[in-house]
C-alpha cells in the first residue's frame, strides 16, 4: 500500500517536472529541473529495488550531466527562442506513440511476476549458481563484470570513444585555450593566430 502511494507520488512529481520543462523558456531552470527529474527517476529505481541502477542515475543523471549542461549553458544563450511552428503535429505524434506503448503494456506480465519470461531464462541460474561460481554477494556485479564481462568492456569502450569524440570536436584546435595540450610557449603564438582568424570571438 505504502509502496503504491510512493509510486503515485513519484510519478506525479515526474509528470509535473516534465510539463514544467516543456513550458519553461529559461534554459538554466530547465537544466535544474532535468536534474530534479533524474533524482526522481533514481528514487523510482530504489522503489523498484534496482539500487545499482538508482545509484548510476543519481550520480550520472542528476550529478555529472547537470554540471556538464551548465557548462554548455555558459557557451550558449540562457533563453530558448519561442518555437516558430505550432506544437500540434509533434503533440499528436507523441500522444499516439505514448498511447501505443501504454496499450502494449497490457500484454506484459505483472511487474516481478515469478513466471515472467525474464525470470525464467538465465536469471535463476545467475541467482542460484553465481555465489558458487564467482563468490560475490552482489549478483549485479557478478553479472555485469563476469558473466557479461564482454558487454561491460564494450560499455567502457563507448565511454572512451565519447571522450575521444569530445576532444576531437571541441578540443582539437591548436591555440584554443580549452586545448588538451598545455604548452605555454606554443599557446602565446597560437592565441595570436586564432585571434587573427576570429576563432575565439
Amino acid at each position, binding site marked *: 500500500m505504502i509502496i503504491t502511494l510512493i509510486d503515485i507520488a513519484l510519478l506525479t512529481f515526474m509528470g509535473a517536472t516534465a510539463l514544467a520543462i516543456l513550458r519553461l523558456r529559461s534554459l538554466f531552470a530547465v537544466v535544474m529541473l532535468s536534474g530534479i527529474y533524474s533524482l526522481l527517476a533514481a528514487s523510482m529505481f530504489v522503489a523498484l529495488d534496482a*539500487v*545499482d541502477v*538508482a*545509484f*548510476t542515475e543519481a*550520480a*550520472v543523471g542528476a*550529478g*555529472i550531466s547537470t*554540471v*556538464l549542461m551548465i*557548462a*554548455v549553458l*555558459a*557557451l550558449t544563450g540562457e533563453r530558448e527562442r519561442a518555437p516558430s511552428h505550432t506544437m500540434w503535429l509533434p503533440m499528436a505524434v507523441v500522444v499516439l506513440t505514448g498511447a501505443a506503448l501504454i496499450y502494449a503494456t497490457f500484454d506484459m506480465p505483472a511487474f516481478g511476476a515469478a513466471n515472467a519470461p525474464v525470470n525464467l531464462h538465465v536469471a535463476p541460474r545467475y541467482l542460484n549458481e553465481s555465489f*558458487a*561460481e*564467482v*563468490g*560475490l*554477494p*552482489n549478483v*549485479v*556485479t*557478478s553479472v*555485469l*563484470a*563476469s558473466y557479461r*564481462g*564482454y558487454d*561491460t*568492456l564494450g*560499455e*567502457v*569502450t563507448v*565511454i*572512451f570513444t*565519447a*571522450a*575521444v569524440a*569530445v*576532444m576531437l570536436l*571541441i*578540443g582539437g584546435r591548436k591555440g*584554443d*585555450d*580549452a586545448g*588538451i*595540450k*598545455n604548452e605555454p610557449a606554443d599557446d602565446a603564438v597560437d592565441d595570436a593566430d586564432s585571434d587573427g582568424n576570429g576563432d*575565439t570571438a
Partner: protein
Amino acid sequence: MRHHRVLRIISKLLIPFIMLFALYVQFHGDFGPGGGFQAGVIMASAFILYGLIFGLENARKVAPPAVVTKLVAAGVLIYAGTGYMGLFKGANFLDYGALSKDPVAGQHLGIMIIEFGVGTTVAAAMITIFFLFAGRDR
C-alpha cells in the same frame, strides 16, 4: 567564485570525503550497490567541484590534462589486458577464473581489476569532458 568564502571552505571540507566515498563505492561494489561506473563519476565530481570553486587553472594543476587523457585509455587497456591474461593462461578471453589457482578467488581478483579499469576510464573521461566544455570561451 573567488569571494564565496562559505562555498570555498565547505567544498574544501567535502572534497576528501567525496573521494573517500568514491573509493568505497569502487572497492565495495562486490558486496553492495556500486562499482566502477558509479565510483568513476563520484571521483570525477570531486575534481569538477574543485574546478568550479577554485578555478579551471588550479584544477588543471591538480589533474594535468596530459595525464588525465592518458588515463582515459589506460582504463580500457587495464580491462582488455585482464581479458588477455585469461587467454595467456589458457582459458577464454575475460575468463578471470584462470587468474588464480582457485577459480573463485581468480574471479574475485579479475572483477576487482576490471572494475578499477572501468573507474579509471569513467573518471578520466568525465574530467576531460568537463575541462573541455568549461575551458571553452563563449
